C-alpha cells in the first residue's frame, strides 16, 4: 500500500498523520523524565553552590482554551535524593547567602494523579534542619501554575519570585542578543545585571553569557580569566559546555 500519487492527497495524509499520530507507550514520558532528571541531578548534586534534585515535568491540561502546565509532585521520593539535596544545600549555604534550589522530584510511573505543584525551595543562609524536599500541597489540578520554578512556590517568598523575574528581565535580553550575534549588547545587559544583582540568583548564567560575549568581542584574556574563575566557582556547572565551547573558539 502506498501514499496516494496525487500530491495534494499525499499532503493531506501527512497532515492527518500529524494531527493523529501514533499513541506513545503509556509510561514513556515518566521513564524518560526519570532518566533525564537522574542525569541532571548526577551533575548538579556535586556542584558547589547549587543543589539540585529531581523535578517533575509539568503535566498539561486544557483549561479555558489554553494549555495549562501543572507541576506534579511524586508521592514518594528516593531517600538518596533527599540526602543529596541536604548535602548540596549545606555546601551551598556555606558559600553563598541566598540562592534558589530547584527541587526536581521524580514522578511515579504508574499514577496520573496530580498531587501538588513542584516547588522551588529557597535556601536559607543556614543549613536546613529538615530535609529539603518539595512539600506536598493540597492544590487542585486547576490551580496549577504555568511556570514550575520561581513562580510556583508557596515556600519561595514573593520577594524572591519578584527578584528572579527581575533578573530574568535583564538576562533574557542578554541571551537573545548573544544568540542574535550582538555580543556588545549582551555584555551591556550582563553588566547591568551585575550592577543590579551582584549576588543574583542567575549569576552563574550571567558569567557564562559574559564569557561567550567577551570571546565574540575579542576580549580573549578577560574571557579566559573569567572562564577560569567560572570553573573554580562552578566546577560542575551545566553551562560548562557553553563556556568551554567559547574557550575553544579563541584563536591560539
Amino acid at each position: 500500500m502506498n501514499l496516494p500519487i496525487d500530491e495534494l492527497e499525499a499532503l493531506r495524509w501527512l497532515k492527518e498523520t500529524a494531527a493523529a499520530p501514533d499513541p506513545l507507550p503509556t509510561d514513556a514520558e515518566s521513564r524518560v523524565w526519570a532518566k533525564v532528571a537522574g542525569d541532571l541531578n548526577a551533575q548538579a548534586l556535586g556542584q558547589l553552590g547549587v543543589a539540585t534534585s529531581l523535578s517533575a515535568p509539568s503535566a498539561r491540561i486544557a483549561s479555558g482554551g489554553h494549555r495549562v502546565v501543572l507541576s506534579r509532585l511524586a508521592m514518594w521520593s528516593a531517600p538518596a535524593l533527599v540526602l543529596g539535596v541536604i548535602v548540596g544545600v549545606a555546601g551551598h549555604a556555606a558559600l553563598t547567602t541566598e540562592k534558589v534550589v530547584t527541587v526536581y522530584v521524580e514522578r511515579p510511573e504508574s499514577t496520573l494523579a496530580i498531587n501538588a505543584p513542584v516547588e522551588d525551595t529557597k535556601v536559607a543562609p543556614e543549613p536546613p534542619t529538615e530535609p529539603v524536599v518539595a512539600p506536598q500541597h493540597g492544590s487542585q489540578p486547576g490551580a496549577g501554575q504555568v511556570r514550575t520554578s520561581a513562580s510556583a512556590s508557596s515556600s519561595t517568598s514573593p520577594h524572591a519570585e519578584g527578584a528572579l523575574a527581575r533578573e530574568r528581565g535583564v538576562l533574557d535580553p542578554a541571551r537573545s542578543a548573544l544568540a542574535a550575534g550582538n555580543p556588545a549588547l549582551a555584555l551591556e545587559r550582563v553588566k547591568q545585571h551585575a550592577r543590579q544583582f551582584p549576588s543574583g540568583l542567575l549569576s552563574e548564567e550571567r558569567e557564562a553569557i559574559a564569557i561567550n560575549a567577551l570571546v565574540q568581542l575579542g576580549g580573549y584574556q578577560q574571557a579566559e580569566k573569567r572562564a577560569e574563575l567560572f570553573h573554580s566557582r562552578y566546577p560542575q556547572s551545566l553551562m560548562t559546555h557553553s563556556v568551554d565551547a567559547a574557550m575553544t573558539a579563541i584563536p591560539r
Partner: protein
Amino acid sequence: MVEPSVSNAVAPNPPADGLPALPEFPEIFATHFRYCWLSLKRLGVNGGDLEDLTHEVFLRVHAQLLQHDPERPLRPWIFNIALGLASNYRRLARHRLQFHAEPPERIADGPSADERLIANERNAMVQRALEQVPLQHRAVLILHDMDEVAVPQIATSLGIGTNTAYSRLRLGREKLQPRGGSK
C-alpha cells in the same frame, strides 16, 4: 499538529516588560516530549531506541538552553537537535546490520480498536513513505508539511538558506510519492 502554538509554548508568561522568557526545563520537557518522540520516529529512529534518543535530546536541550534565543520558537530548535542525533544514530545503525523489531507497546486508552487500526495503517504508510526520503529533505518536509513551520523559520532553525529549504521541500515531496507499485 494539535500541540499548542509555538509562541504559546515559548512564552506562556511574558514578563512585565514584554520580553519573552524561556519556560523552565521541566515545562519544556512536558510540553515537547511527545513532539520530540514523534519527530525522532519520523526521522527514522526505531521504536526500541526512541526512549534513549529522546532522553539524549532533552539532555542536549538542557545543556544548550543558554544558546537558544527566547524570541525564537522552541519547537524547530528542538527538532534540529533531534535531527542531529537521528542523523548520527542512522549512521551508526547502518553498520550494525541489525533488524530492529518494533517492541510491543502498551498503548494508552484512546479510540476504538477499529479506529486505531485504520489510523495505525495510515501512519505506518506515511512512515514507510517518509523513509524513502533522504534525511535532510525529510527534515524540511516534516517541519513544513506536518509541523506547519514556515520555510524561513525552518531555514533559520536548520541553519540553511531559504532557497535550500525550499529546494529540499520540493525534492522531499517528490520523493515522498512512490511512482506506482505496491510494497
